Each structure stands twice: as C-alpha cells, then as structure tokens.
C-alpha cells in the first residue's frame, strides 16, 4: 500500500507529468511563465486547489449523479477557488494582488478537471489527496523550468534581480524580447517534452 501511494504521488511529478505527458494546463503555463515569481505562486495555488478539489470530489464520488458529474466537479472547483481567493484577500493581500487574474484562471485549468474525472471519481480521499499534490507539483515543476529560462533570457533577471552582469550588455548582449512572448513558452514546453520522450522511449508516438 505504501508503495502504491508512493507511485500515485511520484508518477505525475515527472514520469506521467500532467503538462508534458497529458498535455494539460498548457494555456496557463504560457500565460504566467514570463517571470519566476508568478509561476511559483501559480504552481503552488494549483497544487493546493487540485488537492482540495480531489478530496472533496472523492468524498462525494458515490453520490454524484453520473449525468451532471462534470457540472458538480466544476462547482466544487469554482467554489474552492473563490473561497481561497477571498481568504487570500483577507489574510495575504499582497499575494492576492500578485496572483490577480491567475487565481481565476485556476478554475479553467484542465489539470483540475482531468484529475477529478480520471482519478478522484474512482479513488478514495487519501489517494486522491496524494494524486492531487503530485499532479500540482508536476505542473509547478514545468512552470518553474519554463519561467526560469524565459526570465533569464528574456529580462536577464531571476526573481526580479539582475543576474546578467552589466558588462555583457556593454559588449553588445541583448535581452531576447521573444522570450517574453507566449509562443516561446510553447516552444520551451516542446523542448521539455523532447527531453522527456528521449528518456521514456515507450511514450514516443510512431
């Protein structure tokens, strides 16, 4: 059982990563990864929300009418996101300003619906919690990798601090403005998928 739980938790972090394997949550991965800070905050918020939503839906799973299950899942997610957003506004105002629109974007994150539908509807609350945290962290990991590259090459900074020294600029180095555009995030996610598939050959499509 312990091994199984470890697998539920560990698999989605890299081997069965929601972003690079299931290709879920790409839209927000493009939107928030121009800088590291929002990427990390978004990654953590999604982790919290997907874990909570997984537990709630898993507890309700036997009572949910089959025909409106997607709606029920959506209501659970939307309610949780709204509550988290309200609580942040009251107790961590700076974080909520930092998150601004992204917190609303969590509702539309496909990872949530994907995990609720594929996992929480069939499994108990404990496994669902682990699955939610695992998937959230997997998503956060990809966000952080993409944001690291984009902020470093796009603005020459990390967490807002200048890391590329001034003399580089004096010798003709330029920040790559392309990196700050969303398409580059897609290309970077593509590169990560490439590395991932090189490691796990059985996932390659013929």
């Amino acid at each position, binding site marked *: 059982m312990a091994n199984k739980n470890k697998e539920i938790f560990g698999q989605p972090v890299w081997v069965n990563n929601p972003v690079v394997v299931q290709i879920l949550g790409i839209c927000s991965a493009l939107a*928030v990864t*121009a*800088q590291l800070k*929002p990427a990390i905050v978004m990654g953590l918020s999604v982790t919290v929300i997907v874990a909570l939503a997984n537990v709630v839906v898993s507890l309700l799973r*036997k*009572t*949910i*009418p*089959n*025909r*409106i299950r997607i*709606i*029920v899942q959506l*209501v659970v997610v939307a*309610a949780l996101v*709204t*509550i988290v957003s*309200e*609580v942040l*506004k*009251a*107790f961590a*105002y700076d974080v909520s*300003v930092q998150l*601004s*629109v992204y917190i609303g974007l969590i509702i539309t994150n496909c990872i949530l619906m994907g995990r609720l539908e594929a996992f929480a509807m069939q499994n108990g609350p404990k496994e669902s919690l682990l699955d939610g945290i695992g998937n959230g962290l997997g998503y956060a990991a990809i966000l952080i990798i993409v944001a690291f590259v*984009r*902020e470093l090459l*796009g*603005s020459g900074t990390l967490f807002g601090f200048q890391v590329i020294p001034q003399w580089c600029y004096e010798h003709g180095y330029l920040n790559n*403005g392309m990196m*700050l555009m969303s398409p580059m995030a897609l290309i970077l996610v593509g590169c990560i998928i490439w590395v991932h598939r090189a490691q796990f050959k059985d996932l390659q499509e013929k």
Partner: protein
Amino acid sequence: MATKEFKCKVCGYVHKGDKAPDICPVCKAGASEFEAVKKGLDTNSNIYTVVYAAVMVVIVAFLLVFVSDSLKERQQANIIQDTYKQILYSLNIREMGNVAETYKSTIEGDYLMNADGSLKQLSNDEFCTKYKSEFKSGRLHIFKANVDGAVKYIIPVNGLGLWGEIWGYVALNEDRNTIYGTYFSHASETPGLGGEVGTQYFQERFIGKQILQNGNVNLSVVKFGQAKDGVYEVDGLTGATITSKGVNSMLNDVLSAYKPFFNGNN
C-alpha cells in the same frame, strides 16, 4: 424488503426472490443473464439529479455568502491599507513601518476640486478607494501632503492599458506643475513587458517632468529612447507600445480635468 430483485438482461423480466431463477420464464435465458437490481437511491434518476443539483447550489451559495461576509471587513481594511501604500509610493516613500501611521503623518487631507479650482476638504470617513468611478462622476480628488515641510499634491489617475485597467497616483510639487513622484499599477498587463509600469525604475522616469505647457496638460510618454532632452517627454517601455500609450492617455485625460486647479492659486 427481504427479497431481492433480479432483472433479466435479455427481456427485462423482473424476478423477485433470494436468488436469480435458473431459466427466465419469458425468454428462456440462463441464470447468468440475470443481474441484481440495486435497492436504495437510484443516482441516475431525474429527480435525484435535479434535487442533487439544487441542494448543491444552495449549499455552495450559502458557503460563499458566509465566507465573503465574514471576511469583508478584513478585506476592506486591506484595500484601504493598500491604497494608503500606493499614495505614499507616489511620494517616493517606498519603505515604511506602519502604513496607516506613515499615511496620517504625511498626508494632510483628502480634497475635492471645485469647478473653479478651489479645494474642499473631505473628512476621514469619506476616504475612498475607487477613484475610477469617482473620476467618472466628476468628484476630482486631490491629496495634500507634507513631505519634510514642502507641500505636495497627489492626484489619482486611471486608464486602460493593453489587457485591462491601469491606475496610479501622480505627486506634484507646490508649483502644481513639476512631478515629484509617480506610482502606477495594473490589473493584467503582460509580465515583463507592459507589466513593467508597476516597477520603480519606470515610475522614476517621471520625476522632474512638467505637465503643463502654456496652461495645457501636455506630457507625453514616447517610444523608448526617443524622449528628447526636455521636461515634457518621458521614455515609454520597450516592447509595450500599447501600455505606454495607455499611460500617456491616462495622464493627459485625467490631469486635463484638473486644469482649473493647476492654473489657479487658491
């Protein structure tokens, strides 16, 4: 309820008893074709679905109302605190201990501009955080501040960037012309590009610039690197043309409404 029900999957015949019959009396199918009919709530029935949805919506609605209501006061306090902070940022006070105390000791009062440019002081209870609707309804706020003995005026501004609202505060020297400091913020500009309006280095470009030229508001935010030496042009943001233009029209639109104040002496 002692007996169970078994339904024939072939013809739909329902048999009552402890176990499935060997042969279906209607279609002669074997016992393996029978399945137990579940007792209890049928989660697929229409009534269950409708009731479930209704109950769920009511519960969620009450939960949200409860959460929002119980946190409202704290949220409002945070918003006021944040507005204080933004106003102080425009005075180049970026580090502060207690926000409310710093605000009280720096800002002398919140005023409304009358049509002739004179000011009417508002009481502390009238402190407001929604300057966009205030501006639209013609209530033109001006804050009077005292920084190390010098009088400063702060004007809240708001406008549109590329994706959403941008807003800020412009602090003027006593001559009602030279910019002492600015603060801008945004709702959803692109991080790293338009989002840079919220950064200190951009806001400091405005310091020392003048807003009035021959009695009219004329301060332009131009393409980066094109600001000529002078006091009426400010470098915009690289890669964020529309946001820069938004800042430009925000400043000109809002500040123009304050012309009577700039040109008056009262």
